[in-house]
């Protein structure tokens, strides 16, 4: 792979909180920036806000052309005018997570003590709860006392659970999708393979690759390739690629390349053009650290005692990264405290990625749950008549 330029600098819509943020690790950020996007219009009583939490490699560009890749927003099939998360009706917010690389404070933003340098590998370890606290500051800043809904898949789902546990009064409805209350040993193991690939890249330079004008692109690409396999099901890979060869109809045993290989290589190389290696490490660490039960004395249901939030959990049959059992574990914890829970397992052969794809039953579930919650909340059918 060719040596790549460091990530392009882009001006993101950002709010800065000069008071900073105290992190779970005990360290403090002197200055906190949160980059975010909004869609739709906030109603006069600020009752129609939906916060979307993005996954590991997602960002705030949910429903618009991405400024770096030029591609459609990552959830543009679900979020937009007339779509299940209807921006004609709701005020939709999405913030880049703390530790991310799309404008929020993270390894690429200036170091508190050395403003001329980025944090880089010196960025303090952050948690899912730290990410949620940063989002809460944004939500407060926007004048929203209670979010109508918080919605997210995968790591975004972890944030949704953390929102409901940490700020139950601020969340009317919560939709954790294809997620878990903690990472399994298998989840951590896959993340560790990715991290080791980054560390093994000669361009890693102990995490100070930016000093050399380098980027550990090969390592990060391998990390992305491994992760990408975990996002797909065996059936989906077989359907998409089978054993087909690139530019050949049968094996010659010389320069053969399988379609699946070139697909993964493409995924890897595209990824390094939009993602920072130190951010990848920070965020995968945050996911591995996440254990909502441990935050509440080892009993997950205690995270939700007295919580009046309406929950809708969604899992997918072929998702082996965050399997249905992980969602059911959360469902059982919620019903132990008699919380209001809907739970649907969507039949799909697309693996973990299904939550990002066009799955009609999934979209109907989200639209229906939101409509039902709006009825309970007494929201008008259209916020803006």
């Amino acid at each position, binding site marked *: 792979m060719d040596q790549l330029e460091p990530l392009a600098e882009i001006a993101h819509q950002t709010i800065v909180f000069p008071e900073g943020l105290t992190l779970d690790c005990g360290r403090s950020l002197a200055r906190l920036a949160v980059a975010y996007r909004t869609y739709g219009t906030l109603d006069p009583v600020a009752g129609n806000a939906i916060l979307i939490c993005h996954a590991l490699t997602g960002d705030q560009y949910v429903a618009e052309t991405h400024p770096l890749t030029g591609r459609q927003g990552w959830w543009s099939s679900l979020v937009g005018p007339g779509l299940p998360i209807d921006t004609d009706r709701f005020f939709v917010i999405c913030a880049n997570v703390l530790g991310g690389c799309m404008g929020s404070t993270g390894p690429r933003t200036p170091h508190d003590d050395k403003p001329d340098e980025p944090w880089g590998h010196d960025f303090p370890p952050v948690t899912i709860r730290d990410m949620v606290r940063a989002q809460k500051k944004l939500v407060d800043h926007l004048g929203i006392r209670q979010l109508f809904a918080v919605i997210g898949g995968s790591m975004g789902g972890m944030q949704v659970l953390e929102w409901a546990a940490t700020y139950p009064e601020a969340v009317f409805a919560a939709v954790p999708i294809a997620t878990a209350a903690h990472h399994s040993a298998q989840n951590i193991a896959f993340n560790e393979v990715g991290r080791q690939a980054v560390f093994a890249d000669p361009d890693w330079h102990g995490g100070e690759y930016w000093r050399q004008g380098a980027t550990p692109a090969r390592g990060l690409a391998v990390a992305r390739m491994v992760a990408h396999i975990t996002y797909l099901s065996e059936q989906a890979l077989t359907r998409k690629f089978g054993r087909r060869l690139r530019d050949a109809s049968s094996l010659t045993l010389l320069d053969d390349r399988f379609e699946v290989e070139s697909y993964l290589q493409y995924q890897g190389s595209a990824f390094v053009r939009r993602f920072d290696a130190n951010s990848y490490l920070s965020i995968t660490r945050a996911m591995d650290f996440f254990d909502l039960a441990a935050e509440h004395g080892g009993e997950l249901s205690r995270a939700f005692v007295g919580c009046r939030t*309406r929950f*809708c*959990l969604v899992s997918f049959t072929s998702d082996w990264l965050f399997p249905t059992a992980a969602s059911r574990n959360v*469902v*059982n914890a919620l*019903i*132990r*405290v*008699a919380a*209001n*829970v*809907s*739970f*649907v*397992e*969507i*039949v799909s052969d697309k693996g973990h990625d299904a939550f990002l794809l066009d799955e009609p*039953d999934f979209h*109907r*579930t989200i*639209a*229906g*749950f939101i*409509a*039902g*919650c709006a*009825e*309970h909340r*007494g929201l*008008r*059918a*259209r916020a803006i*008549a």
Partner: protein
Amino acid sequence: MPDGTQRPPDGARDAARGMRVDLQLIAGLVTPGARVLDIGCGDGALIGHLFRTQGCDARGIELDMALVTRAVAHGLPVMQGDADTDLVHYPDQAFDYVVLSRTLQAVERPLEVLRQMLRISGRAIVSFPNFGHWYLRAQLLLKGRMPMTNSWNRMWYETPNIHPCTIQDFFDLCVAEGYVVEQWLALDDEGHRAPWRRFPQLANLFGEQGLFVLRRG
């Protein structure tokens, strides 16, 4: 639509229209504003009705994922779950009513399900098809074969109804388990109230379904 008008999700409205007659009877037994869990709620017609017409906090559990998806897509709080295994997770007295309509005969452990229902709720509303109905008795007596009716319409080897009982059997069970029968009715095959209220033996002969409201003694 004028300002302030609340409009129920279309699907939920459709679900209430043409609700089964026995479900309408059950709804009539539930006090407004109550907390209700409907076990085996199907597409959620009862819980939708209870929320919209009686202001209940009504939720559902359903085994069949296709029905769960339809219910949630209609805006109803329903989760996929199994009466036999999932009631244990609920805390004591979390509900005012737990409803089990036409499902008791299909669960694996009816006694345990009833115990769990009356642990998590003040009252249990239970309906079941009555195996003591004269037509079933007659078929067994005259043909010597397992009866086939509208309610009992699958061959014995593929029916999900593995625990059939009669209205009188159910009275006996309530005595054995120390449950108080607060109300009971026999229903005809349309689900309408049948006039056998004062005579359990006649109800057992002519009632197509039994409907009971129980509490712990």
